[in-house]
């Protein structure tokens, strides 16, 4: 009898896996960089080509690094939210302007508002590769020591910010006990 039940057993196992699968998006690839030191960079800033911004500039406080580009339609979607959030919260929000032209990027910020303390200008996209960026926009949360604690792929919505990002920032800001 048992061996005749075997096919049913295997099938039941498959169904369990499918139930799990239905609740998860196969396209989201978790970053292997979580809980690892953020890749270092030393890039010209978007606004003044002569001045560089370094990863160390982000350290000391909990910061957000938002990867964006003027050619990215989905960035336009999350941008107003970033502008609003940066006005109401004391966030250390930095941008990584990814594979863009300076002209387009600046025009974009002038038109839609600039929520960033500063944007690093990654024209060749090499820092993007270091950060494992594959679908702009992406947002990284870095703790005080520059360790990546969270990564969000795709545009942020209000729920993401209120329920995940802000509480996480608050928690990371607590002095280490």
């Amino acid at each position, binding site marked *: 009898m048992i061996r005749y039940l075997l096919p*049913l057993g295997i099938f039941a196992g498959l169904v369990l896996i499918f139930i799990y699968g239905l609740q998860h998006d196969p396209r989201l690839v978790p970053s292997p960089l979580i809980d690892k030191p953020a890749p270092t960079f030393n890039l010209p800033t978007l606004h003044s080509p002569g001045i560089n911004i370094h990863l160390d500039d982000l350290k000391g406080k909990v910061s957000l690094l938002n990867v964006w580009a003027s050619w990215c339609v989905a960035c336009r979607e999350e941008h107003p939210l970033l502008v609003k959030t940066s006005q109401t919260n004391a966030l250390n929000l930095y941008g990584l302007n990814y594979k863009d032209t300076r002209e387009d990027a600046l025009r974009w910020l002038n038109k839609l508002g600039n929520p960033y303390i500063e944007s690093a200008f990654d024209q060749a996209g090499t820092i993007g590769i270091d950060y494992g960026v594959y679908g702009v926009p992406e947002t990284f949360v870095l703790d005080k020591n520059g360790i990546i604690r969270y990564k969000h792929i795709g545009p942020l919505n209000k729920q993401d910010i209120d329920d995940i990002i802000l509480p996480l920032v608050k928690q990371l800001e607590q002095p280490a006990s």
Partner: protein
Amino acid sequence: MIPELGHFALILALAMAIIQTIFPIAGAANGNQAWMSLARPVARLQFVFISISFAVLIYLFLTNDFSVAYVAQNSNSLLPAIYRFSAVWGAHEGSLLLWAVILSLWTTAVTFYSKRLPNFFLARVIGVMGAVSVGFLLFMLLTSNPFERLFPVPADGSDLNPLLQDPGLIIHPPMLYMGYVGFSVAFGFAIAALLGGNLDSSWARWSRPWTLLAWAFLTIGIALGSWWAYYELGWGGWWFWDPVENASFMPWLIGTALIHSFAATEKRDVFKNWTILLAICAFALSLLGTFLVRSGVLTSVHAFATDPERGVFILVLLGFFVGGSLLLYALRAPSTVKGGQFKLISRETFLLFNSILFLVAMLTVLLGTLYPLIAEALGMGKLSVGAPYFNAVFIPIMTPVALLIGIGAIVRWKQDDYIRVGKQLRYLFLASLVVGGILGITFFDNHLFRTIAGIVAALWVILTSLSALMSRLKHRQNKLVALQTIPRGFYGMTLAHIGFAVTIIGITITSQHSVDVHQRMAPGDVVAFADYQFSLEALRPTIGPNFKATEAVVKVTKNGKHVTDLHSQKRIYTVRNMPMTEAGIDSSLMRDIYVSLGEPLDDNAWSIRLYHKPFVRWIWLGAIFMALGGLLAATDRRYRLKVESNKTAPVEGGAVSLKS
């Protein structure tokens, strides 16, 4: 009004399907003849209604009725009429309707070609198939209604996915579904046999031609898909081990095991439970494929737009049909009467190994396809399983198949003498080895081991198949008459096996000896490659009905002699603003030359890929042979015999004892 007509016809079809399920099955259980006799007319009526519904959808596409959401999302007034027609099954809702239409078509076919079936048995078969119809019609009506209206009505549609605007896609899905869904007949027969407890070999005889037919369609469907991917995706590949491809390949593998297992069950009354299980599995895998493609649990290049709600629905259907039938199997199979006896050296043994190898091959594809999901569910992180994995594990498993085909075709039923078999085979083996070796060394200068191994395997299959044919003629005086008396089933088998060999040759040589270059070319540039000279004659803009394109004209010469002019286009489909590559291909039996226009570079230069693919056509040619073989076998005389002709035959001699 007209879309609502289609919708209404669909609802009526559902009503018919419900009647078709309940009354015949209940009738067979209670012995109510009147209820059982409903099976035929109701199943045909279901077909009438669902055909009306399908015809309405076609009409809506041809008349550009963008008030229907499905039409608006998948068509456009500029879309050529033939693609407006095939757009009917270009996305989820319509292809589901096609699924249901084909299921109903198979059911109706069974009602017409079932004179030999006992009433109660036919009632159960039609009832089970009706239940599947109910599931899919409900699925469509509740989650995926193709007739849903859109408001406000858009001025124009958002066009059919350009990937699907291709002649291959007009017939690929119907063929594939004819195969997929065709396994529902074997499934219906298997469940009917389990329900009625008549697990003798008769159900195998009844069900075998249907299964052969479905398998032949599936073979053609898969081959068409592969061919389409080859010329349409513009990468020159013909099989990607993509989850969607695997979803169609798994039922094929089990279907292959099934048609061989049927042979043993029908002829020798062995492996009865095994055959039943394979019949359930073949259809279960068709349903699984539907789930994988439409639920979004896996990423794929050709997956449909997905929706978890739909995924849940199909999972419930899958659980009901597959879980239910496997449970029924577990309850009924243990009481099956043991079949005939056979020895180690017998055709039964080789057929058994055949099914096991194909089952293992299917499990391997299943494991590889689902492993990313399994790994993630078990918290082992996200990983990918792609072509390198499948090639590495699949080929070692399939290699023994070639060896077994050769022996299996020659060895006799029940018991054979290994000395006799050895005598017949050893020269054939030697001949394959020698001829394969010589061919390999003469025509190729690298990857020799694999090339020769592939050619030897193919020759072995061909030679042993022909030898089996010869030995049927050996003691006959008039060979011509003898040729005519050999049953079609045997010719079908021989042709299919030779087709398999042809495919092996195609796969081996194409994968070992294809070469390609990726080149920057401006008009006037010449590239020498694989014994040919490719010169880019012109780059010119062209305009199609719904796209703009740049066309490259590449002149191909060999030793100064003109071979052909190839035209490859880079198209931008204007509505979806989606780029597509149209490859330029010159094909012949021995090689394809393939030109694919890449992206514009600076100075009027473009990146261009050139491919030389020897023997690639053999892959699909072999598939055609296999399908024709299946078709021949399905039309064997003994399946067409009227029941009267063997009623007169008395059981003579031989003590027959029945355990049941």
